[in-house]
């Protein structure tokens, strides 16, 4: 298996692109929730799936909702969004939701907004297009994530890990953008052509 790793420069560029995309995403979510949002600086790394599952398992201490959404195009992959029970409840309160189904829908919406704004912006910056599948909310308990086949398709992934904070509402989430080998290769090429333009 070929192991990809991002150089410092590539990481820098991606970090910059992500910051732009994140700014965009936060703005939209803030608008959607009508609240001020802040984002931690995204932490970008290429890791093996095993490590990813270990990261997920760190989240197990609390009860989490877990949703995923696939995106397709030259840059393709899946985003995984985690939001804990307390945050989800606050989200429900904020949106004045009545039933748990409405809450599920709201979480999916939040996932969709974050994923599409992030990836759309990112792909725009990289001069490509992406399309989105319907997001799905995982019904599987978090402790069984390691067993689900979904993540087995990824040998290594780019993890763009950030915390989303709507401080007034106390809504925290964690989003991971997972991409497969060929997308990582494509991304490296893209990042390098951007780098060349900058120099």
């Amino acid at each position, binding site marked *: 298996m070929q192991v990809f790793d991002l150089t410092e420069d590539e990481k820098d560029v991606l970090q910059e692109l992500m910051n732009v995309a994140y700014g965009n995403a936060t703005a*939209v979510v803030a608008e959607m929730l009508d609240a001020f949002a802040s984002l931690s600086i995204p932490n970008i790394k290429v890791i093996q799936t095993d490590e990813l599952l270990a990261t997920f398992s760190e989240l197990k201490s609390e009860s989490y909702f877990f949703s995923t959404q696939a995106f397709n195009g030259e840059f393709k992959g899946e985003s995984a969004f985690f939001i804990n029970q307390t945050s989800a409840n606050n989200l429900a309160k904020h949106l004045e939701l009545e039933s748990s*189904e409405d809450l*599920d829908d709201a979480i999916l*919406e939040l996932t969709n*907004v974050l994923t599409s704004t992030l990836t*759309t912006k990112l792909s725009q910056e990289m001069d490509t297009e992406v399309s989105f599948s*319907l*997001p*799905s*909310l995982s019904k599987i308990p978090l402790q069984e994530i390691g067993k689900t086949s979904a993540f087995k398709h990824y040998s290594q992934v780019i993890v763009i890990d950030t915390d989303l904070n709507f401080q007034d509402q106390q809504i925290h989430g964690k989003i991971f953008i997972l991409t497969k080998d060929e997308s990582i290769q494509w991304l490296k090429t893209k990042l390098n052509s951007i780098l060349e333009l900058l120099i």
Partner: protein
Amino acid sequence: MAQNKTQQYIRTLDIDKKIVANIDNGIIVLNQELNIYHFNKWLELHTGIKEYEILDKKIDNIFDQINSKTLKRKIKTALRIQTPTFYTASTSKYLIPIKVNQLNNSSFEYMQQDVSIIPFDEEKGLVALILTDQTIMANTNALLEANMETIKKLNAELIKERDTIDKKVLVIKFDKTFCIVDISQALLELLSYNKEELLGKNFLYHEKNQMSQDFQMRLVESMKELQVLEFEESIFSAHGHKICFKSTLVPEYNANGTHIGFIIFRENTTDTKRLAQSQEKILASSRSAAMGEMVSMIAHQWRQPLSLINTIIATLKIKKELDKLDDEAINEAFTKIQTTTSYLSDTIDDFRDYFKPNKKSSEINILSLFDNSIFFLKEEMHQNDIEYKIQGEENISIYTYRNELLQSIINIIKNSIDAFTYSKSDTLNRQIIVHVQKLASHVTISIQDNAGGIEKDILKKVFEPYFSTKSKNGTGLGLHMCHTIITEHLKGNITMNSDNNTTTTLIELPYSILKGIK
């Protein structure tokens, strides 16, 4: 060119309109205030509402189930981020109520819909809602979920059962190459091994030291033939304890019926074995105790005839010295000596018979059996001033093991005699009375003495092994052996009762040991 012409022709058509009209999806165009701009043919057909009837009306007024706030939020978001937003069937079920009319979709009343809200015209704030029928998928999911529930339940049961088996059943599994693939916790604990120590080891090699060459051959033979084999084996645990098993070798097959290996189920028989061995020991020591008793009895029996012979010889000597020894006297003396020695010989035979356990049952007359046994004890009873009486019909015969019964009777009467001597009872008319009675299903023999009776809490224990009231002299095996012989060998019952001064031992015996007591 034909191809270009076709392409030109197609361009003259309003492709989108035609396709939108015929596509198998519902399409609605809305503005941010939820006013309807377009309602496609698919929706007309499914809802029975015509586009012209509802154009420019608010969709949430027409379908009042729609949550306007959520829909508005989604539309606003889609327009803002310029990518689709969604409703998914799995959480939102449906947006536009459309009755399901297919019979096989009976688990839902309304069509389950995925809805994509795509930005259509940013300037005018229009979006298009694309509805996809997901009923079949939702149905499949519901079915799957229901089945998953069943599977989960079954699986839980299975795991529980497996766990029980693992904890309770002694079982070892190995594959066709005799490589141990599984071993139950119960067996591991018994043998004091860790699973890791045994997994992957060769079964034959691991247990070979404890198997005879012959047996190994037989085992391998059965394995080759894929036969079920029941056998006894003993294995040394990791701590060196010998453990006996009754085992069953069973070939194991997978779900396709392919032979994959073997399972041995084991039953720990160590305790049973030990019990049988101790029973044998008890029997042996009771035999030797009885033997000792018999020797003293023989001595007793011989004393009188021997002194008779002595007397005859002495008389002969005197007559010879007095010169009065004639032929008649010699003949008379010889006849007497002959009778006496044959009596001595008979006594030996009788005792020898008594020690030989019968292999075959035979017809026994009970009264004459008592005569035989009393013959051994008469002298002792006489010395102790005990009167012996037997009552009952003369012709009572049963089919049983003669010597076993004889041994038991002697034991019981001997106990009664001992009771008189040990208790030092001052009963004037010392008596042992035997009463034999014929009943419909069996024969009863009661042996009663008036030697003072037995206390209740002692009475409970008289048939237990090594229980004796005779301190030094008793082995404590007599009555226990009687009990074993009568209940197990002779298929009868024995009970003991005591009342005031008397003790009664009641023996019940079947007419035939082959049939038992009905």
